């Protein structure tokens, strides 16, 4: 795409410069200046219809032909939601709250802040929302950006092919600390991920239990 468009730019510029510096043929003389209905001559019709109509239409059809399959590749990850891990991401000014949902019910398995843990080579279904203003979820190496809008939930499916840490950020201006509203996606091997979520789950259960038994200091 880039090469093609660069060629277009170069060609148009070259035509312009040539048109400016060329010596016109004598045929250009003898125009009837008082004629308000002048029909295009054959040569001019080639310019305007060929260059103005046919050329952009054909170019754009080619571009669309190339880009539609790419678009389908990017957005068309398999959508069996049951098998995918489901994660709720809620943006706040200026942090990311991440809740890992149970496979069937919407029970919270675990929660993290500013860190999204996912297994490698597995589809992950994200529910994106916002608790205050509009933010936008973007992990450049995993997917295009998708806005997080209060009152709405947008769904995004991602899949990472390599373990590692992928930087993510807020891509919609959201106020004072927008520039530093970052997070990291930690991609683990399947086993590491299971281990991690189990440990998280135990912590959550412990906290729940303590809450039930009233053993957590109430803050006084």
């Amino acid at each position: 795409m880039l090469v093609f468009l660069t060629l277009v730019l170069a060609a148009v510029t070259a035509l312009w410069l040539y048109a400016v510096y060329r010596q016109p043929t004598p045929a250009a003389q003898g125009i009837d200046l008082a004629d308000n209905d002048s029909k295009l001559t054959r040569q001019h019709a080639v310019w305007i219809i060929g260059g103005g109509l046919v050329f952009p239409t054909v170019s754009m059809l080619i571009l669309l032909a190339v880009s539609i399959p790419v678009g389908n590749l990017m957005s068309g990850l398999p959508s069996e939601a049951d098998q995918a891990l489901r994660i709720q991401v809620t943006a706040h000014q200026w942090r990311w709250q991440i809740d890992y949902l149970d496979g069937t019910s919407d029970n919270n398995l675990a929660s993290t802040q500013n860190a999204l843990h996912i297994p490698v080579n597995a589809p992950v279904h994200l529910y994106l929302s916002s608790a205050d203003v509009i933010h936008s979820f973007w992990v450049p190496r995993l997917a295009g950006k998708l806005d997080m809008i209060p009152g709405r939930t947008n769904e995004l499916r991602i899949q990472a092919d390599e373990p590692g840490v992928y930087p993510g950020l807020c891509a919609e201006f959201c106020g004072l600390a927008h520039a530093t509203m970052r997070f990291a996606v930690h991609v683990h091997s399947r086993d590491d991920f299971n281990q991690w979520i189990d440990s998280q789950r135990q912590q959550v259960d412990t906290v729940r239990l303590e809450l039930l038994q009233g053993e957590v200091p109430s803050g006084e």
Partner: protein
Amino acid sequence: MENDVDAGNPQSSARSAQLNADGLALQLQRTWANPSGWGALAAVSHGTVGLRFMLTGTAFFLVGGVLAMLMRSQLAVPENTLLDAAQYNQFFTMHGTVMMFLFAIPVLEGMAMYLIPKMTGARDLLFPRLSAFGYYCYLFGGLIILASLFTGVAPDTGWFMYTPLSDANYSPGPGPDFWLLGITFVEISAVSAGVELTVSILRSKAPGMTLKSMPIFCWYILAMALMIVFGFPPLILASILLELERATGMPFFSVSGGSDPLLWQHLFWLFGHPEVYIIFLPAAGVVSTLIPVFAGRPLIGYGWVVFSIVLIGFISFGLWVHHMFTVGIPQFAQAFFSVASMLVAIPTAVQLFSWLATLWSGRVVFALPMLWLSGFLVIFVCGGLTGVMLALVPFNWQVHDTHFVVAHMHYVLVGGMFFPLIAGLYYWLPHFSGRMPSYMLGRWAFWLTFIGFNLTFLLMHLTGLRGMPRRIYTYETGMGWDWLNLLSSVGGFVMAAGIAMIIVDVAVHFRFGPRATRNPWNAGTLEWAMPMPPAPYNFVSIPTITNRYPMWTDSNLPASTEAGEHWLADASHGRRETLCTTALTGMPVSVIHLSGNSWLPLWAALAMSALCLSLLAGAYWLALAATLGASAILLRWSWVNGVHRDAAPLSNDETTELPLHSRTVEGPGLWAMVVTLMANATFFLSLVFGWLYFRTVSPQRIIPAEIRVDMAILLFSGALLLLAYGLYNNAVRRIRDGQGAGLQGRLMVVLFCGLIQNGCLVWVMVTSPLQVFDLTHDALVLFLLMYLSFHSLLCWILTALQLLRVRRAYVGVELPYELIVLRPLWIYSTAVFWVGMALFFGLPLAWPAS
């Protein structure tokens, strides 16, 4: 004054013709001159006001430029501490706001206001006081917005003001209020310029100048003016709603009342995308005007270019969603807007190849303006191509809100608007200074600007592709952005140096530039028929024009115009006059009597700034007083209009065979009323859009089970309105037929019905148990009622004013014009009432909420 009288005449008659022409010019000068000293503030001439627009716009441009330099300094190195986050957010918000609203649009409007009458053979724009009023609204609105910058409370939520970041919860400071009120104030100026330019182009062309033979520039400006008329009202509505939400808590956009923040984005971009073409079209008009001049031959494919201008105008209203590809809209909608966005490439390419063909077949003189046009070509084509890339949705998901978009947008706006603007500046500079610019300095200025610009923004594409988001005040080192940002900043300063050099060039040319001969570029259009600098009345007499390049086909045109050989060569009556012609064919039908210098525009704009400031301060009683003051001034304005009996007496000095427009039943005022109502209808349709969006799309909508306004009284009020309209219409029809008897009585009955009708509406608003602070639904209903009430009141007041004028005999059987001008307002107010009833109360009955 220069005068080359035809050498063929015998000497003595040449001398007496010369004396006559000089006498005529003197009379015209007396009639049309601006007052001097402080009185100059009361000047209304389009030349003066146009220049004021452009100079003020330049001053705002420099402010916006300084903000850009501060931002580039901050971003030059990673983790810089020159600016903090709060300052940076204010600066990028203000940079966008100032460049868009206070520089680009007003400067182009100013250029159009200056040039259009001179190109079409008119002596002034058709509503001179409105020009001046528009200028003062712009000036005061701009100063109010700037004041927030210098007091450190500038808006900091981006020039797009997305809710809920810009609402009272998340932006409790006064910044967004400054933006919403100030910009709305500036938009009054844009819309009034839009109306005025539309009507002036259509109705005051020289005799014989048809739509087909008017200069191509006029087509561009006509398209721009109509796009302003249809494009700005959605933003005006959105700004009013958001300001109401901020000030009173009516939840027009907030989820708590059941609304959706995306409604703001739709309304904003419904304005925001046409806005890009509002900026691009006049600049492209400069290109289409200059290229034939420097190629020395007519523009090839005039008809095709006109068609592509109209096409761009239409398509640009169907693209707004491409600013919202990442909000999570359905895929088929994305595909639709993606293809629509690419379609714009076709009319743009038609123009491009028309320019190329014109250059190809002409013998090109490579003067300074051509250099800037070449710069325009390279940058704009590049920006257009990245635009095609951005229209591809999957690519957009990656680079949306990165520096790639920043680069694209600057290529389109600076390339598409700034470069042609400077080409136009150098081209028309001799027209108002009478001197030629220096090729040497001008060339340096061009290359500095061109190289600086590309250094800054070409690299910025790469910065964006490497993932640097927009609107961040700092970044960490090691992301691969460091050297790119540093070079971009260096480039920014090189470009600033280039712009400084343009300013120096223009400034010194007033002193040292060589004197320009008449029509120095050998142009074909009428504005070069006048001496330079031009007289305030433009033409001593108005020539008949039969083709697109009158200066090429009639070498005697300047002389015969000045010798008073054409239309309206008489100023002994002391009236400011220009010709009114038919829109399509340019047949002269009447003489328009224009209003002269006036202080009213300044007073009106001052009263409205007082309103704006008191709203900012939350002093609502003061605001009410300012509103009453502004209304009183505006009513006074319409009382002393050009049709005033004392100013244009029904007397025996009407020597031309054409009647004054106030004696006719069809004139520019009627057209302006209709165009204004088109803007108004767009405002109303935006409200309807908001209402339907709320009822069908908003995911958290809350819709009360039953209608909670008193429908009986509301419908009674509507019936009375219909009755009043019918009676008014009848009175107008009778007076058109020459029956003046009983006119006062009829108007009194109209007023009586109107009074009860207004009372009913107010009663409904006051007594209905609407929860306007809790429910979006109810807030929208109340807003509709206020809108209807405002129109009923306006009809009532203006009709009452007409009754007074009938009593004074300023309006009557021989002067029916004003009553006819008012009629469309009655039709509109009645129609909008019943459409509102049907959509807000009827539709929910037929189609209950889900």
